[in-house]
């Protein structure tokens, strides 16, 4: 046991996980959270009186089973969440349903029907081969320690003998290329390819033709290893509540509405934090759940860092590209060919890869998509408490809505130096919201009249509300150059940082975003292994 103290900057889901592990190991742990609730991107919010919804992340792609076991969460096994399939909407009503191992839908060829399970199995095995990398610190390639060597050895073993020679060769072929080429090799149906490719690009600044979209697809698939995608009952905030209870049981002190202004560094060593109120909190360790830019450039300050390290952090790509939209509905939308049960699944608007690519094209030039890609859930169908009786809530992730919108998202958002007329800028958010509503109406006639209240969070709003630089819900693009031993950048990819006693534990660290608890778990392991250093 140790008598060391640790303070966490931010109490997101990863921060809660990390804090719990440390408290159980004897650390005196305190979480300082700027917002009124812990959980970070895992939250349930009320956006209109009586309507509740997951505030940011809305679909659980598996909390790490190991974290669930270790923290005695009810999630070890079937948890307080409902597994859902993906339904890709079609204007003619020929919707596709994509399950873990099967796909169904009118008009699919026998070839595609057969190819899908084989494809999923193959790609799940790739995702699984990467698993040794996931629950450990990413190995350094220079000056490896024993653990790094073990991780690499297990990765090599999994790739060579887990996959077998043929699959390994195929994995190495597709690992760095784009999902567009891969899916075109395997499938014919445009709807099917669009639906699968959505998983490769959603949340990223990428289209299906962007290199390394196979990797982002694998990172998404790895969630399925622990179970299918699911909707948490009570919204994502329930996950935060579970984790928070577990943390408090372990002795973690949680302080909300306690915004950290500065991480104190004393001769190269973190010594505590200063709150916005001026209050100083000293600690032996400071663990940041904030994103890397916020942690290093804002809270620590470039003054305490090597110049090139600061620049590497500065140049990471962290601009969000998704708007989160919440709609209060006075009744269920009716989509031709979908039952109420089917409406409770994950619905996507992604009719083809061409559609996705065109949607992305706008983002390249600082515009929102003319025809956005949507990921829709209506959690109130299975969880009626989220909305007044007979009413529903709809949660939408709408891509693409770039952080740097050419015309600016709002009045004080002068990112580009252009001077469009003020009125225009004030309306951009509303316009995008209208576009999304209109798009859904194409599938659900009369939908617009069902909407009784709405909220749209652009990346700029997400940045302000959730304290995430750029409003990127993964704390930075999960491209190959920002993953593994380069996440967030080399030099701080093993949870420790150039500042002694300062650690990263959030999605900015390996293996990145998603409500998985893995970065928090890995950071805690790293801190415990490093001891007092």
């Amino acid at each position: 046991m140790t008598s060391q103290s640790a303070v966490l900057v931010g109490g997101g889901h990863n921060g809660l996980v990390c804090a719990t592990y440390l408290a159980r190991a004897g650390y005196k742990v305190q979480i300082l959270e700027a917002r009124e609730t812990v959980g970070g991107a895992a939250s349930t919010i009320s956006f209109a009186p009586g309507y509740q919804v997951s505030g940011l992340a809305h679909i659980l792609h598996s909390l790490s089973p190991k974290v669930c076991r270790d923290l005695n969460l009810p999630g070890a096994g079937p948890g307080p969440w409902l597994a859902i399939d993906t339904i890709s909407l079609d204007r003619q009503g020929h919707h596709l349903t994509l399950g873990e191992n099967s796909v169904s839908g009118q008009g699919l060829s026998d070839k595609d029907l057969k190819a899908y399970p084989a494809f999923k199995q193959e790609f799940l095995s790739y995702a699984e081969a990467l698993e040794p990398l996931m629950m450990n610190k990413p190995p350094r390639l220079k000056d490896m320690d024993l653990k790094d060597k073990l991780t690499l050895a297990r990765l090599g073993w999994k790739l060579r003998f887990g996959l077998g020679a043929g699959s390994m060769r195929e994995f190495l072929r597709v690992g760095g290329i784009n999902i567009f080429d891969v899916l075109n090799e395997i499938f014919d149906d445009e709807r099917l390819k669009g639906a699968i490719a959505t998983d490769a690009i959603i949340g990223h600044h990428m289209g299906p033709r962007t290199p390394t979209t196979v990797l982002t697809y694998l990172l998404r698939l790895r969630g399925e290893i622990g179970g299918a995608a699911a909707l948490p009952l009570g919204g994502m905030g329930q996950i935060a509540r579970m984790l928070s209870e577990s943390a408090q049981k372990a002795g973690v002190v949680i302080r909300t509405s306690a915004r950290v202004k500065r991480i104190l560094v004393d001769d190269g060593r973190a010594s505590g934090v200063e709150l916005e109120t001026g209050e100083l909190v000293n600690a032996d360790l400071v663990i940041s759940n904030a994103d890397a830019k916020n942690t290093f450039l804002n809270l620590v300050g470039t003054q305490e860092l090597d110049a090139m390290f600061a620049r590497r952090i500065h140049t990471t790509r962290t601009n969000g590209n998704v708007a989160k939209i919440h709609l209060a509905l006075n009744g269920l939308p009716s989509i031709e060919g979908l039952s109420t049960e089917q409406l409770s699944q994950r619905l996507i608007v992604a009719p083809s890869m061409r559609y996705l690519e065109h949607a992305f094209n706008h983002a390249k030039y600082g515009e929102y998509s003319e025809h956005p890609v949507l990921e829709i859930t209506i959690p109130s169908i299975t969880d009626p408490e989220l909305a007044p009786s007979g009413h529903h809530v709809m949660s939408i992730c709408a891509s693409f809505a770039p952080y740097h919108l050419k015309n600016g998202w709002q009045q004080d958002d002068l990112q580009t130096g252009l001077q469009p007329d003020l009125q225009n800028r004030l309306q951009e958010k509303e316009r995008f919201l209208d576009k999304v509503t209109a798009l859904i109406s194409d599938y659900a006639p009369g939908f617009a009249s069902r909407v009784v209240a709405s909220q749209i969070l652009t990346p700029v709003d997400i940045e302000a509300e959730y304290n995430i630089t750029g409003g990127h819900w993964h704390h930075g693009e999960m491209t190959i150059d920002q993953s593994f031993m380069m996440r967030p950048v080399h030099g701080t990819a093993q949870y420790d940082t150039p500042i002694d006693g300062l650690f990263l534990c959030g999605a900015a660290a390996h293996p990145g975003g998603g409500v998985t608890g893995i970065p928090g778990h890995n950071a805690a392991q790293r801190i415990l292994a490093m001891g007092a250093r």
Partner: protein
Amino acid sequence: MAGQSWEKTMEQTSESQRGEAHDFRQVLKHSPFHVRVDDISQIKSWSSWNGYQTARCYDTLASEYFAIRSSCSVMDLTPMEKYRISGPDANRFLSRLVVRNISKLRVNRVTYVVWCNDDGKVLDDGTIFRLAESEYRLCSQHHQLDWLLISSLGMDVNIIEETHDVAALSVQGPTACAVLSEAGIEDLGQLKPFQIMQTTMLGFELTVSRTGYTGDLGYELWTGTDNALKLWDTIFGVKARGLYDVKPIGLEALEIVRVEAGFILPGDDFNTAETTVRAEHDRSPFELGLDWLVNFEKGYFTGKRALRREQGNPIKRRLVKLKVEGNKPPTDSFLYDAKNGQRIGTIKTNIWSPILKANLTMADIEYKQGKAPGDIWAEIYYQKELEWRATWAQCSVSEEPFWSHPRRTAKPPAMY
């Protein structure tokens, strides 16, 4: 937000970079002194120094060397990289940039500095001139704008490259003070080493610093490019009046005196970190014998963590001032720990010092258990009537500059 100030700096700098259109047929840039330099040059021996057409030698090397050591020499210093650094965080910025503690650098003082990359390897050396409370000039050997901008992230500082906007002359030698006083610079005798004064001359503003690269008395003069020719003509007017000899000198003579004075030259004596590709081919301040510059007491600076780690280990190699016996030029010679012994290094720069009658060099040698080898020998290849021969010469490390003169710091300097 940090990011915005960064982009702002980039814009400002690129604005000042554009300048007027450049004639593509003129490969090397002409300094504002060029018409005079070209006129005096007898042998038209040119070299590129930071892209400027620079005289290597005007007529004979010996006469230029002895002008520096025994009378008054003038060199066009315009091509030296110059940056104007200002703004509320200027001091904080420079403090984080360089390894030396500059917090005590007063206004109108100059100091010598080096700066490192994250790994504590030297990128370049130079001098910082504190011109006003938060206004500095940084002079460097190589182009550093990109590194300065990288280092400015998160700091409220303006960085402007002014290499092309400031005409500079280096006036060095025993009679430098006398010549410049005759040329009309008042109160020059009061100027202390590494001190700056602002003055006017013939109605234009002139900055004078008592600095140089020769180990002797000398001054550097800084003014707007429009005043360049007036400045040149006034100084050479002292010679025309028959009072003192004043001689323009080129890069070759400078090379001799700077080695005599023990000044290192990044890029020649050691590989700068930015241009290094191979592992261990870059050098830390410790490996350059500049440990006296590194201050661990001050706040954080780039490379501090790496240098602190390195400080704990015995030094593996060092750039040393090495005197080589005999009169055969040890150009690019290998060095050994005994005659026919183990190879321990190479000579980077060598000159024949007329004033000391000795082969003086800058050499990179391996240390053993943190110490210089006791016995060092150079294997010298030399030609006699086109026939190559080899010989051995014993070497000795000098911790002090090979040559220095009390004149360098005398106040006031003798007027001769």
